[in-house]
């Protein structure tokens, strides 16, 4: 369960979020939509404990969460498989599992490549593979298919949809296609608030 109560976020003299209330019940799949800079990523970051609200309260009832970032965060000194394995046991025993997730996102051939050898779309798929490999209660996705080409996007969305069934999902997106494919609740930013679409 994720709950935002009267949450505001102010950076300097810019109010990013003003008194936002949002409730994502356990097992729900919620998508946040809105223009750039409206605070979608900030909400995800606050729910993940990476940022604190200026005021209000954020409650997250979950032990573990997986997060696919808008800009893939891969360790440049590790191969694609090692990056995925980093959230598993990070030992040789779980490397096959890491490879399995990479294969699932179409990166079987790239498992031994370093991030700098991968395209933007491939890096994003490694990030997604890592999020799916991690057995968390929550799955956060920030523009998960932004870098992907249309064909690959459909495949990855199908995989994510299947994977998100067992989890509570919170995602930020500009794409109605993504929101419809993955979420059962869509919140749209309007007049400084996220309201159900």
């Amino acid at each position, binding site marked *: 369960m994720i709950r935002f109560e009267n949450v505001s976020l102010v950076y300097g003299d810019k109010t990013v979020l003003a008194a936002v209330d949002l409730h994502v019940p356990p097992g729900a799949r919620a998508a946040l939509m809105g223009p750039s800079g409206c605070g979608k990523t900030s909400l995800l970051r606050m729910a*993940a*404990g*990476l940022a604190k609200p200026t005021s209000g309260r954020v409650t997250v009832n979950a032990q*573990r*969460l*997986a*997060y696919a*970032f808008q*800009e893939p*965060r891969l*360790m*440049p*000194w*590790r191969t694609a498989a*090692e990056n995925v394995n*980093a*959230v598993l046991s*990070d030992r040789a025993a779980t490397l096959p599992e890491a490879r399995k997730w990479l294969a699932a996102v179409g990166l079987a051939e790239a498992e031994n490549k*370093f991030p*700098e*050898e991968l395209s933007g779309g491939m890096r994003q798929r490694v990030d997604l593979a890592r999020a799916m490999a*991690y057995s968390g209660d929550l799955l956060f996705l920030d523009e998960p298919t932004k870098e992907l080409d249309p064909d690959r996007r459909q495949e990855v969305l199908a995989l994510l949809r299947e994977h998100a069934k067992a989890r509570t999902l919170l995602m930020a997106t500009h794409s109605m296609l993504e929101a419809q494919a993955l979420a059962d609740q869509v919140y749209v930013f309007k007049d400084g608030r996220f309201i159900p679409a």
Partner: protein
Amino acid sequence: MNAKLWTRRILVLAFWLGVWALSASLVDRELLLPGPWEVAKRLASLVVTGQFWRITMVSLGRILLGAALGTALGVLLAMGTSRFAFLRAVLSPVLSVIKAVPVASFILLVLIWVGRDTLPCVIVVLMVAPVVWSSVTAGIYTTDAELLELSRVYRFSPWRTLTRIYAPSVGPYFLSACHTCLGLAWKSGVAAEVLTVPARSIGRELFEAKLYLESVDLFAWTLVVVLCSLILEKLLSTAITRLGRRPAWGGRQL
């Protein structure tokens, strides 16, 4: 290494040996400037004695121990001061002072507190620790904040964060500091030995050679210092090159 490079190196060495030999013959007084042949002969007579190797190994051991301890201390200080602002505020002036004080002042000051056999090791620690401290701190501060967020989200243990994120980020800074420190350790360690003349040390041999006006010995032992420094530097460079390629130290195995 190709033949051309070796030829060039040998020619450069021959040129400087020629300059040395010519200067010695012009001065024509062994006391002021012994020639390379006399020094080489003396060195050859030294290296066949057990005493020479004992002295060299004791000096080397003392200096390397100081370098290792200084490196460990520098890393610990960097970790502590990067983590705790209070510690940083308290210890930063100490770092500035240590960097500014001349080695000779340190040697004389520390001689009051510790024995002459221990002093070179302590001096090396004092010279090496601040350099490692500064470099490792710079490495810690340049660690990618986004990767640290990643480690928080996926609940990496402190050990995993240290070994998987900090170590590869700090690795190149640490290895570079080690390279700088080796020469520093060697020079400051021998200088401390010369000023404190501990038993069985290169510094003592240099001091006595100067005291008894044994210029050939002075040159021969100085040559030993130079050779040891070159060999150590080469060994360290090789180790750094190999370590630097490893992903765990920020390198790539492409």
